[in-house]
């Protein structure tokens, strides 16, 4: 039987530091996927997720079992990713479209290349605003309800619905533009 997150947290708080690796194995890969799409590249994503887990560990005494550990972690992650975006650190690596506008060519030249597809996804996501990208990913990729998104982002449900709607409209425009080339 799998140990619950709350039980693992209790073990860590009682001094079993190694038990934290259970939570790392449970959530790290999943949240790297989220972070990759949010910040635009693997290197920054893994760094942000690593930082998130470390901050979560240091704040573990404030974790409350009423809340899902994954949701608590996601809230920290969203905040860290926002900070990275706000600072604009290594932005030229995060959003390759800003230095290279040749997405359709890249996609056309390597239609079966998964790396090219990933690049295409990153480029499309980079062309919508940070708030819209965040809301889109939380809703459609992470599968969060708007209420859950509100708790994670600190934004209201109405604003989140509008961001998701606009992100869908914008992404359709971008993707249809790519497909027409």
């Amino acid at each position, binding site marked *: 039987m799998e140990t619950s997150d709350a039980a693992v947290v209790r073990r860590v708080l009682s001094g079993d530091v190694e038990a934290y690796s259970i939570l790392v*194995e449970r959530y*790290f890969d999943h949240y790297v996927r989220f972070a990759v799409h949010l910040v635009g590249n693997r290197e920054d994503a893994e760094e942000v997720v690593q930082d998130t887990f470390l901050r979560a560990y240091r704040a573990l005494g404030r974790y409350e079992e009423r809340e899902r550990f994954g949701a608590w972690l996601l809230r920290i992650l969203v905040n860290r990713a926002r900070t990275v975006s706000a600072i604009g650190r290594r932005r030229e690596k995060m959003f390759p479209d800003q230095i290279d506008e040749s997405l359709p060519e890249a996609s056309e030249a390597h239609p079966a290349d998964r790396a090219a597809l990933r690049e295409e996804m990153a480029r*499309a996501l980079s062309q919508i605003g940070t708030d819209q990208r965040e809301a889109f990913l939380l809703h459609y990729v992470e599968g969060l309800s708007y209420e859950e998104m509100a708790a994670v982002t600190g934004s*209201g449900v109405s604003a989140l619905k509008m961001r998701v709607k606009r992100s869908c409209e914008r992404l359709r425009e971008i993707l249809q533009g790519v497909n027409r080339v």
Partner: protein
Amino acid sequence: MPTPDPLAAFIAGLREPVSADPASKRRLMELVRESPSPAPVAGVVARPVPTRSRALATIRRMRGTGPSTASASTLATAAGIALLLAVGSQERAAPPLTPGRRVVTLGDSVASVASSIRDTLRIVQFMLTAPAASRVALAGDFNNWDTRGTPLARDTRDGRWAVTLALAPGRHTYAYVVDDTQWVRDPAATPAEPNELAPPRSVLIVNR
């Protein structure tokens, strides 16, 4: 034949699993081992005021429907009834709410009249002065951070908004959501530890 939505395929691509570099996880655990051990953090203790027997009767009826399992609307409705009963006596005996104090515990513990302490619910009134707001809601761990399920009622005379809930004893964190977008920490309560945990929150400890 209809054209497939390019967004659907795009989302499916985004959902494909990703495997992180195992070295990242190893490095993370090294950093964890080097970090000081995490410790629980204390919050503020809510102020209790005298009980009302009919409010307690309402709370008794709620027993077995704890905040962790009851819907926010059920809780709010039940608590609202309890508040109404309690306020009936407040008009005669209780002083007006202290200016600046936004969270007031109105009810006493069922524990005072029952043998079980752990199942106790307490009546807590949340209050925020926001005369310019169109809507104010309460979001907290007790309602799964639902930003719409626990609206505050407005008193048009002074711009105060209030709602009353029945909460289990323990530490709760919460915030007010003004006009659906702005998260506001309770100005009269202890802020939750400033860290990366958005949104801004306040801490309330409900005594047994």
